[in-house]
């Protein structure tokens, strides 16, 4: 009986802990869908996963009257998930300006598209603001004749079978690949083309031989280069934009890859004989987790700088230093991973850098991890202040793809040497002739005073002069 109670208690505690896990940016999720009941069925696994991560989900139709993104100037929701809708518009409450205001107020948006639906013009306008381009006619399909699912798309080739993306760049932590050698299915999706800004990052790019075409108008073939939307790596299947306020906007080109039919489906890639279960569920968890600020979120806990000299004061964060002081700077950072703050590690080829700058940096130094606790890492560096006096800033400017932006600035004065802090002249060997000159002058003057006051006239000379 007792063991039953303890096991029951443990089970409840475990469940409570599971439900408690939530995003670092709030748990109010708004899902926009034309047919709420049907979409709840179609995406039940994905939405169930999202709800189990502690989100409070509200379902609304796009043209619903009661839908308000803002209440009394504050966001009513923290995140928005837009499922594909039919029809040209998405209602008066989801205008491009409203969505951008939501985004500027640090709300996160996950937008899914489908090649069977034409994207509404207001969403295309929002994407244009972010420099994400959709094919002309607001719809298209990505096909790849080399790597498709032979079980379901043997003829139309519109279900792409892709490997998990891997790290975006060597020095960027990979937040999205479930593990090595996993496969993803991308059925009937719309490709996007990204502008060249630093804020846009693709999560998943199309394979080299894939291309996008419009099934209605380009069913025979693509006539010329002007009509070709993109080929291969030019196409981004899942794109992200992280604004400077760290709000996240993700465009998933294929809403079907999140649906129950495909989230754990079996595919057979061209040229292979085995059926593979796709890792769409874990991938979807990570993509939605990134968009809703559950992973890839950084926080600065505290910053401390002090004078690092023997005999110097140990005041923390003084307002003023002297030129050429030895100074130590420490910063404590944490990373939010799914449900708690953990120690943040910088990838090997990357560096967290401290800039000591007036108008431009005098020093740009890597910060080394010094101490790792369970929920934060302390990075520190010691250096010598420049021999320029003025007002300087300790700047940490850490902006990386897929991580929230970290910008910290601490201003200090750096004063010049005081008049009594220079080395004394007797220490400077070049001054010795001058010092000896001073001494000779002093002794000579005092001796002259004595001789002049107390001497008797020199008899021999006077006598010599008189006799002449």
């Amino acid at each position, binding site marked *: 009986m007792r063991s039953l109670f303890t096991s029951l208690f443990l089970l409840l505690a475990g469940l409570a802990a599971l439900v408690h896990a939530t995003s670092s940016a709030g748990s109010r999720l708004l899902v926009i869908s034309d047919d709420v009941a049907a979409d709840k069925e179609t995406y039940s696994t994905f939405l169930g996963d999202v709800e189990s991560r502690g989100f409070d989900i509200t379902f609304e139709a796009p043209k619903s009257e009661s839908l308000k993104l803002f209440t009394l100037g504050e966001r009513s929701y923290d995140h928005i998930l837009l499922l594909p809708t039919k029809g040209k518009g998405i209602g008066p409450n989801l205008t491009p300006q409203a969505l951008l205001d939501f985004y500027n107020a640090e709300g996160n948006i996950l937008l899914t598209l489908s090649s069977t639906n034409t994207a509404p013009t207001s969403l295309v306008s929002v994407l244009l603001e972010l420099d994400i381009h959709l094919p002309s006619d607001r719809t298209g399909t990505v096909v790849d004749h080399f790597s498709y699912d032979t079980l379901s798309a043997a003829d139309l080739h519109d279900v792409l079978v892709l490997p998990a993306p891997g790290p975006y760049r060597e020095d960027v932590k990979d937040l999205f690949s479930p593990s090595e050698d996993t496969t993803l299915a991308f059925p009937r999706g719309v490709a996007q083309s990204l502008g060249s800004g630093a804020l846009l990052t693709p999560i998943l790019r199309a394979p080299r031989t894939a291309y996008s075409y419009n099934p209605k108008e380009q069913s025979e*073939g693509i006539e010329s280069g002007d009509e070709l939307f993109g*080929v291969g790596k030019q196409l981004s299947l899942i794109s992200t934009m992280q604004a400077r306020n760290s709000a996240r906007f993700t465009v998933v080109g294929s809403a079907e890859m999140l649906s129950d039919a495909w989230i754990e489906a079996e595919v057979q890639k061209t040229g292979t004989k085995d059926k593979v279960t796709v890792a769409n569920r874990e991938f979807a968890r990570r993509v939605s987790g990134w968009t809703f600020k559950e992973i890839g979120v950084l926080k600065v806990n505290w910053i401390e700088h002090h004078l690092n000299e023997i005999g110097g004061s140990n005041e923390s964060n003084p307002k003023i230093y002297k030129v*050429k002081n030895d100074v130590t700077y420490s910063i404590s950072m944490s990373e939010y991973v799914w449900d708690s703050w953990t120690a943040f590690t910088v990838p090997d080829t990357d560096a967290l850098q401290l800039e000591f700058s007036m108008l431009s940096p005098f020093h740009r130094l890597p910060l080394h991890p010094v101490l790792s606790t369970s929920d934060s890492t302390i990075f520190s560096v010691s250096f010598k202040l420049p021999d320029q006096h003025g007002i300087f800033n300790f700047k940490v400017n850490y902006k990386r793809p897929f991580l929230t932006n970290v910008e910290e600035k601490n201003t200090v004065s750096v004063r010049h040497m005081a008049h009594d802090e220079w080395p004394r002249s007797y220490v400077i060997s070049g001054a010795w002739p001058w010092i000896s000159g001073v001494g000779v002058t002093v002794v000579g003057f005092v001796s002259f005073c004595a001789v002049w006051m107390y001497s008797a006239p020199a008899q021999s000379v006077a006598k010599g002069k008189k006799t002449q």
Partner: protein
Amino acid sequence: MRFLNSFILGLFLAAGTAQAATSWGFGDAAVSVSAKKADSKVTEKFTEQSPLTSPLSLGSTDSLKLVLTTKENGKGKRPHQAFLLISEPNTGLEAPFPLDIKEDGKAKVDVSQKGLPVQLLASSKALKASLVVGSFGSAAPLDVFAFEIQIKSDPNSPIQTYEKPLRYGKMPEIHHIFRGDPTSPPIVVSLVFALAVAATLPGLFIAWIANGANLSHLPKAMAAAPVSHALFFGSIAAMEGVFFLYYSTWNLFQMLPAAGVLGGVAFLSGLKALGELQSRRLSGQR
């Protein structure tokens, strides 16, 4: 009945094997580079198995023309995808050029420097051109390397450069280069000149003594006005002492009062002391 079954089965088998063997390819492939004047034309032929071995040179006004016939299973047919992908070997960037294809598979495409993006024109190596042919259905698609293109830039026009867009990442380390500490000349030089200066003092004394300097009136002066002379000469010497203390430890606000006091002492005692000196002068002893 059984004969009919096996006949149908045979048909299915034949169809199955025929389907498995269909693949896309191309034939009669010829690529030529012609200058604007179109008087000279270099035409090279290649096939799926044997691409061109030497790169084609494409000048700034030249136009590269590719003609071929796309074939499915040997028969000319129009595929949905027939691209010429030109890639830059250093970065892996690829530019697509769709071929203009007719229903019987005859395809052509023109490439000139004007149509190539600047990243490819600025490449230091020869560009690699591959042909990708594929279409819907079960026919196997084709992706083969065809030929290389060497970009010949016009010597008169400015060199094409490509500025990479900003991407967030680690920036180069900067270490401030400090101004050198102020230096003194070699100690030997300083010592020589210091000694030269110091040597003037004995020289001065020797010159004085040679010209008859003496202190013979000191007892007379001390007998006449001992306090005044002691204070006067003492205050002169003490003033030098104050200056030395100001040099070594004191600040101005410690030195000024002392100098003021000593100055007052020197003035008051000096009246008497120099008065005694005047009396000796007036009595003809000086």
